[in-house]
């Protein structure tokens, strides 16, 4: 069985050697990549001020996989939009590599929840969207590389409506990676997918993350997702959102989803979100 195919189902393949995940320096020793300080966001809605974010401080380390988890509509997406430069914070600032974030940047690509792919472009043209400055040959080989990386061989000339939701998400991921960004921001990228596809896509994301060594900020309301993916989990409160706590998730990878430690970690996140363990 090839590496790629076994990585498709990380949770089902624990008997396989774990050498896919290369040894990284301990998380705490890595350099800070992103610093967000005192982020507040207030929207004016008619005569009322709606406080969406309240004093958020966040550090993301180089090469880290950080997951922000919180209730729906708590302001996670607003935080991501501020970090990505699409929105300005009411107060506070975001610094990446010590430079002030002042708008979106090609070095930091956002993967959106859905609908982010361009329906009028083929899979191949979507992936090449950000590569206009490359020579045709370079562009072609870059596209081919990422088509292969995300497993879309044979679908290069298909239009988005001809492929599944999971494949569209792969297209977005490949399009983002193709411009060689150093950070990836993912805004509930698997939110619209079914359970099985979501599960497969998480494994794929980890495989790609491992191959490409990007710093990742991943937004979700799915607790399992946070525990499966993150180096560190940021738990947010409901609106106005603040950071409740940051949990170091040191579970060894690949992660065994039925191990006691995994379940303990999940329970910890549940507890921090103030959710009952029984339904």
């Amino acid at each position: 069985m090839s590496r790629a195919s076994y990585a498709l189902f990380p949770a089902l393949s624990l008997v396989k050697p774990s050498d896919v995940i290369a040894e990284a320096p301990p998380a705490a020793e890595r350099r800070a990549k992103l610093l967000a300080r005192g982020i507040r966001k207030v929207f004016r809605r008619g005569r009322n001020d709606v406080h969406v974010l309240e004093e958020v401080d966040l550090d993301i380390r180089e090469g880290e996989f950080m997951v922000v988890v919180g209730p729906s509509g708590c302001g996670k997406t607003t935080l991501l939009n501020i970090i990505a430069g699409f929105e300005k914070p009411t107060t506070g600032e975001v610094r990446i590599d010590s430079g002030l974030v002042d708008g979106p940047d090609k070095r930091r690509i956002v993967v959106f929840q859905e609908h982010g792919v361009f329906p009028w472009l083929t899979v191949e043209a979507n992936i090449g969207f950000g590569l206009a400055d490359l020579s045709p040959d370079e562009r072609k080989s870059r596209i081919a590389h990422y088509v292969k990386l995300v497993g879309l061989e044979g679908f290069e000339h298909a239009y988005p409506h001809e492929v599944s939701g999971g494949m569209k998400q792969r297209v977005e991921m490949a399009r983002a990676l193709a411009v060689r960004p150093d950070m990836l921001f993912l805004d509930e990228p698997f939110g619209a997918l079914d359970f099985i596809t979501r599960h497969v896509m998480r494994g794929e994301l980890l495989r790609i993350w491992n191959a490409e060594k990007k710093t990742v900020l991943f937004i979700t309301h799915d607790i399992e997702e946070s525990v499966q993916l993150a180096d560190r989990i940021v738990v947010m409160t409901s609106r106005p959102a603040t950071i409740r706590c940051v949990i170091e998730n040191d579970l060894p990878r690949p992660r065994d989803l039925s191990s006691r430690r995994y379940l303990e970690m999940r329970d910890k996140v549940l507890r921090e979100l103030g959710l009952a363990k029984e339904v």
Partner: protein
Amino acid sequence: MKPATSHRDRVTTFAAPAAVGALLVALWHVSVAYSGTRVFPSPAAVGAAVAELLRKGLLIPYTFDSLGRVMAGYGAAIAAGVPLGLIMGWHVGAASALNPVIQLLRPISPLAWMPVAVVLLGVGNAPAILLIGLGAFFPIVVAAMNAVASVREVHLRVARNFGLPPVKVLLHVMMPASLPQLLVGLRLALGIAWLVVVAAEMLAIDSGLGYLVVDSRNAGKRYDLVVAAMVSIGLIGFTLDIAMRFLARATAGRWSKAV
């Protein structure tokens, strides 16, 4: 578009409309025969009139004359209306400055412009083309403006994220993203242009299907020729609409299904 393969599809797309058409023609025939009218032609007489027009070499050239005027007026309306509408959709200031004028002029029927067109451009092709252009212009502007509003915010964000300059955003994102909506408006506008050409040709022009209607009535009250011209106008308008619908579906199928 799925081909109409099943029996049921074929019935609904071809057989049922054909049956309705046949029924109406039959009703027409019976009404003419029963009332004993000498003015209104029977379906057979209209068929003979079409044959006569073809034999005299009038129908085809007249059709092309009318189509030529429509294409000139409609083309000018697209050339002026699409960019204007896109700008109005893109730029809030442009929209608030221009929209009241557009909305004020829009409800004025192109027919009301007839005297103005003649005063400005005299008689002949020019005023007819102006009227057609006016008829098509306003729906095109409105469609282009609304089409911009239908562009997804997320696509614009992607474009900004990848650092596209404004001109490229317009060409590579706004244009293709708004195309399906735009085509709906263009289809509507073509229908209006075809409506207007007939009226415009009644205005001091001596060719075209609209001219044929007026001329046949004036010169000897040939109502068989009048109805033959009407039938031709209907058929060509129908064909144009099918062509536009086909074009719209070819793109919309790809675009909107991707949602």
